[in-house]
């Protein structure tokens, strides 16, 4: 039995399949996690997209990845747009990627901005809450992963710059579900165990927005805010900003920079101390020599040559002052006496007794002095006091009238 078999060459079938795929599926959006990432020296990017069940080879040519605003790396969850195709030479099924973004980025960014706005309104970022960060601490804490890049960078800087320091690392996860709680626990534990701690660095090395996410969580922000120990945040790279950065006492662009901020160079410090030493020594020298100058100047004055002259002078001055003083006191006493007599006469003429002597009397009703007939009515009993003696009477008639 013979039958004509339709036979393709390998290249033909690969091309044919490719055409079918490109025509039937065309451009698609695919979401997955990057693995096996390689940025080839040609500029093209080769990687695999995968989920829990499957994987898909991907290539992003240089002309498409040029100017990409993220750095793809293993483990990053991305959303890509491309064409399903076949690499004819190798017969490999793949996706040609033209666009790539971090998946869930839009959602996370929205959450970030909302939390930032809310905490800002609450005043958590206010400058007035920020504690000063010492530049030469004796005890520093670090809350980060014990195996990450951050702790290595921090320790390298500290070893290079300043030796007299104790560093306590609180090991914790810095990405994933539990990281937020672990970081909070780290900040709180250091505060509890080391109230005397000068400063702590809280952070991690670079990563995707999802990796850095724990540092955008509200509980982490609140733990940093409540820390009695000053907190330097050091999350990711220079361009990464997290909520932790806003709420911390000091934001460091990277973990290495954080370590540099809390440790001055030994050499600079030695120089500073020497400079202060010189200032003190020369100042004291100046003070002493200026005093010596004054002593010399003073010793040339006449008084020190003829000390008794000054005693004569003082005696003469005292005599003069004494004479003047005696005259002045006598004069003053005379004036005062005159004034006192004048006042006495005046007071006497104003006394009610003197007035009554001149014929005036005082009328009272129930012990109250009456100055207005308004306060009297017919048949009232009144008392009248004269200069000598008094009389009781009863009102017969009231005549309303003006003042006397």
């Amino acid at each position, binding site marked *: 039995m013979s039958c004509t078999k339709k036979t393709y060459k390998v290249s033909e079938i690969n091309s044919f399949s490719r055409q079918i795929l490109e025509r039937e599926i065309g451009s698609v959006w695919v979401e997955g996690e990057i693995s096996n990432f390689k940025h080839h020296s040609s500029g093209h990017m080769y990687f695999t997209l995968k989920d829990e069940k499957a994987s898909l080879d991907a290539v992003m040519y240089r002309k498409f990845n040029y100017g990409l605003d993220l750095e793809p790396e293993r483990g990053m969850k991305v959303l890509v747009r491309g064409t399903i195709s076949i690499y004819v030479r190798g017969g490999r099924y793949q996706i040609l990627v033209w666009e790539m973004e971090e998946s869930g980025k839009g959602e996370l960014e929205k959450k970030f901005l909302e939390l930032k706005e809310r905490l800002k309104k609450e005043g958590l970022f206010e400058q007035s809450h920020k504690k000063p960060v010492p530049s030469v601490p004796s005890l520093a804490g670090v809350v980060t992963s014990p195996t990450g890049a951050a702790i290595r960078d921090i320790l390298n800087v500290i070893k290079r710059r300043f030796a007299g320091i*104790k560093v306590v690392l*609180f090991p914790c996860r810095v990405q994933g579900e539990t990281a937020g709680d672990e970081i909070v626990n780290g900040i709180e534990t250091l505060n509890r165990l080391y109230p005397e701690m000068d400063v702590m660095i809280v952070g991690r090395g670079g990563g995707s927005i999802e990796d850095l996410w724990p540092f955008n969580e509200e509980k982490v922000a609140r733990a940093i805010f409540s820390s009695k120990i000053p907190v330097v945040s050091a999350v990711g790279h220079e361009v990464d900003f997290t909520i932790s950065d806003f709420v911390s006492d000091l934001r460091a662009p990277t973990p290495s920079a954080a370590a540099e901020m809390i440790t001055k160079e030994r050499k600079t410090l030695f120089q500073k101390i020497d400079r202060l030493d010189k200032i003190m020594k020369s100042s004291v020298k100046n003070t002493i020599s200026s*005093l010596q100058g004054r002593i010399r100047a003073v010793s040339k004055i006449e008084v020190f040559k003829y000390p008794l002259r000054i005693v004569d002078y003082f005696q003469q001055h005292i005599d003069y002052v004494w004479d003047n003083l005696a005259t002045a006191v006598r004069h003053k006493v005379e004036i005062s006496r005159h004034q006192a007599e004048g006042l006495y006469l005046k007071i006497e003429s104003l006394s009610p007794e003197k007035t009554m002597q001149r014929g005036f009397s005082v009328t009272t009703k129930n012990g109250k002095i009456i100055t207005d007939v308004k306060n009297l009515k017919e048949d009232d009993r009144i008392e009248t006091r004269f200069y000598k003696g008094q009389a009781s009477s009863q009102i017969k008639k009231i005549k309303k009238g003006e003042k006397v």
Partner: protein
Amino acid sequence: MNKEKLKPEKVSFEDALKKLEEIASELSEGELPLEESIRLFEKGMELKRFCRKRLDESRRKISILVKDSEEYREEDFKDDSPEKP
């Protein structure tokens, strides 16, 4: 100003340096009576020795907190652990 001796474990380097700066600036104004100047100067020299000593010290301790049942304890941290990607 108190006259108590500087205890290295009580005074931070930062505070000592700050005090030293204050003393140097006070002395350089030259307004103080001689006795006060001398007293400050002596204090300054003491602070200087303290600061230099702290800088000379090579003690450096890096520890990691390890959870031991309910409480934490310090252990020496060996930072040559393998790099995690």
